[in-house]
């Protein structure tokens, strides 16, 4: 009588198939998957160094707009990194205020290069990690766009990255990049798009809980502002330790006021930025720049700017750099 093998052919075949898929993903999508499941909490994901060049890529959970620069800054060129979220990111590098800074400075006879390191959905914690790594490429100035609307997303992604790295057997299947990707697609492309928000909120049972709790709980803004306050302090300390000036740009939102109609609001961000202003740390308020203008056409929605808005901001930042002596200070 033929005895059964310890591991059945079917099981063996299934396991081999799974391993083959996993290997294929790891080999053929190496760049795309590198640091993917750190969700932006990986210290260097998205910065690819090759032959003395740094390539900013959409990889490792950091969806940078593709750009390249030299590891060592060119002599006599003022290098600016602009770190922020979707507001900073804009609809293209060229139309964003980050991209326009170099153009505006060059128009004033100052040789400069500026790079857009804005990533949609990044909050204070992840911006800080991007900033820390970017300092390795010796910028002459870092512009840090501070905002408090992405903290819930930062929290959710932090929980995800923690969960992915946890020892619990529940997460063991998620060590497979292929499985993790399928899981993410299901959560983000299917669950979030196919299930109405009210149902998701009433039955929050997954890793989106952080967002739901963040959006619906009382005192959320206060809590997130506390986080922004702490992380901004940390970012300024790190930049100052390397003697690199930092300009804090505080976000302004359009809000509907019953009495005053539409107006700009800073959600307490101006105070946070002002608290950190010291020698080498500067502040520019988006609200103050825009509120005396016809601001509504400059916005695409209540927080994101159109190209025209970015242009206004770029000019204001350049004015600030010159007025504060940052440009002449360094070059």
């Amino acid at each position: 009588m033929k005895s059964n093998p310890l591991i059945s052919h079917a099981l063996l075949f299934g396991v081999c198939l799974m391993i083959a898929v996993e290997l294929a993903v790891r080999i053929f999508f190496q760049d795309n998957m590198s640091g993917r499941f750190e969700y932006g909490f990986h210290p260097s994901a998205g910065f690819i160094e090759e032959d003395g060049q740094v390539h900013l890529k959409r990889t490792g959970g950091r969806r940078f707009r593709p750009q390249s620069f030299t590891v060592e800054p060119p002599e006599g060129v003022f290098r600016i990194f602009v770190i922020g979220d979707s507001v900073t990111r804009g609809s293209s590098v060229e139309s964003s205020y980050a991209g326009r800074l170099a153009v505006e400075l060059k128009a004033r006879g100052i040789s400069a290069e500026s790079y857009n390191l804005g990533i949609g959905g990044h909050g204070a914690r992840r911006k800080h990690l991007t900033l820390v790594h970017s300092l390795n490429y010796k910028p002459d100035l870092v512009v840090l766009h501070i905002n408090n609307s992405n903290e819930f997303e930062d929290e959710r992604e932090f929980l995800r990255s923690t969960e992915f790295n946890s020892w619990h057997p529940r997460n063991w299947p998620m060590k497979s990049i292929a499985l993790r990707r399928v899981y993410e697609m299901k959560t983000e492309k299917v669950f979030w798009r196919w299930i109405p928000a009210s149902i998701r909120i009433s039955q929050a049972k997954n890793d989106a809980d952080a967002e739901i709790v963040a959006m619906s709980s009382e005192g959320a803004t206060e809590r997130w502002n506390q986080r922004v306050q702490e992380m901004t302090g940390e970012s300024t300390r790190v930049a100052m330790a390397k003697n690199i000036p930092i300009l804090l740009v505080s976000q302004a939102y359009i809000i509907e006021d019953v009495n005053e109609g539409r107006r700009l609001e800073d959600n307490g961000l101006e105070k946070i930025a002002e608290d950190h202003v010291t020698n080498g740390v500067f502040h520019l308020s988006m609200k103050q720049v825009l509120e005396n203008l016809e601001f509504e056409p400059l916005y695409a929605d209540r927080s994101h700017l159109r190209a025209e808005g970015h242009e206004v901001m770029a000019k204001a930042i350049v004015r600030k750099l010159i007025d504060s002596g940052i440009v002449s200070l360094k070059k």
Partner: protein
Amino acid sequence: MNFVSFQYGCLLLAAFILFWISPRPWRIRLLFAASYLFYMAWDVRFVALLLASSTTYYLCGLGIANKQKSPGKITALALLPGVWLALCSVFEIQGKTVSNEVLIAAFSFLPVMLGANQLIGEMPSDQGRRKGFLWLALGINLGLLGFFKYFNFFAESVGSLVEQFGLSSSWTLTHIILPVGISFYTFQAISYIVDIKNKKIEPTDCFITFATYLAFFPQLIAGPIERSTKLLPQLIAPAKWDISHLHIGLRLLLIGFFKKLFVADNCAILANHVFAADNPEINTAWALLGVLAFAFQIYGDFSGYSDIARGSARLLGIELSLNFRFPYFALNPSEFWRRWHITLSTWFRDYVYIPLGGNQGAWGATCRNLAVAMVLAGLWHGAAWTFILWGAYHACLLMAFHYSPRWQQACESGRAAKLACWIGMCGLTLIGWAIFRSDSMFQFYLWFTGIFQWQVTGAMEWEKPARWLLLHIGPLLLLQWATLKERDEASLDHHHWATRGFIYLLLFVFTATSMVNDQEFIYFQF
């Protein structure tokens, strides 16, 4: 300790390893220990209830067969529940407290058992003694089930009725916690005692074996409701090691987890929304979507649980009964009940319907027997009017089918007639599930009126949620299609090993990437 938990995985793995390396005489003790450990994880105090049930049925079973134990042994066994509760009280295990009244009740079990054994054992006629022990066992255990499960329901119902007459009920209801699995192990024990009474089996002489039969951990909480003729022999003479136990066990576990985590938990998202308390924004589309989602939720949940139970038991060399066999492919109510929760429906058939006379009597008697059996089956699921209505509804369907030769003929006719029967049966089943799922009659009314309201202000779009539902029931239907010709829904043996391997991989991917969800098994509450 939920099946979908790390703790259960550890318990099962430890039981699996220790079971197969232990000498055969030790295996039953090991299963006993694992089962009680499993039950303790829910609420340590209810172990006393399980011990009381085990003791009653064990002693009464022996009593019926005229093999009474000595007063000393009866004393030792009858003291177990009280001693256990006293230990819980002294050591405050799990931080649970035990009131003095409960302790007194537990220790009063001893004089009751001693007195009853003495009294019934001395009866002159054999028939009288047998009946005496049978009613003693049924009285104590159905009394416990009635108290824990139905007391508040009947008290509330009587209170409401009294208030209808302008009077006020003076009693106050206490919060009674329903011990998990009580409905399942009580029914399993009843089948044991009735089978002894009917001389179908001999009672077991070993208390540990009987207690394990009643508390066998894979099926303790939600079945399958096993018969003593099937499970006891497997406990008394454990199976020999064979690698097929591992293969089949793991396959059942995989399919069970797929049904629970991928199908049931994801369908629950929509069903819970539609049947949320007093949800007025229900239109035709959402009413249908909700009930369809619930139909697959409850099927995935319970048949998934049954597969996990069968898989866990199979790892220990024990074969449990089939509980589901493609229920939604049924063409008529009679077939549905031969495919849905098979161990419960056969239990009611054998211990309620047939003893009442089955379909052997006149038209009226058969209808009465069906009504009694099905209403009791409904009530078994829970103490609520919706469950009673659900039971009565299915009794009506069964009667209609029983006395409709055209319906019966259609089920045996060509494809078109069968298709019409199937569509009709699906619709009838869905109405039944709407009754079952509704928390109150008013909620069922809301759902029912929602069916006829195509346009409702504020109703959400339904197309995308419908896609979500299809995404989660599609793979289940494909799996069922792959096993349709088999007796067992989880059997894939007839496929080539490569096809099986591919199916395993898909099931694993679906299950592992199901979003983290911690929905309790529905049948745990019964």
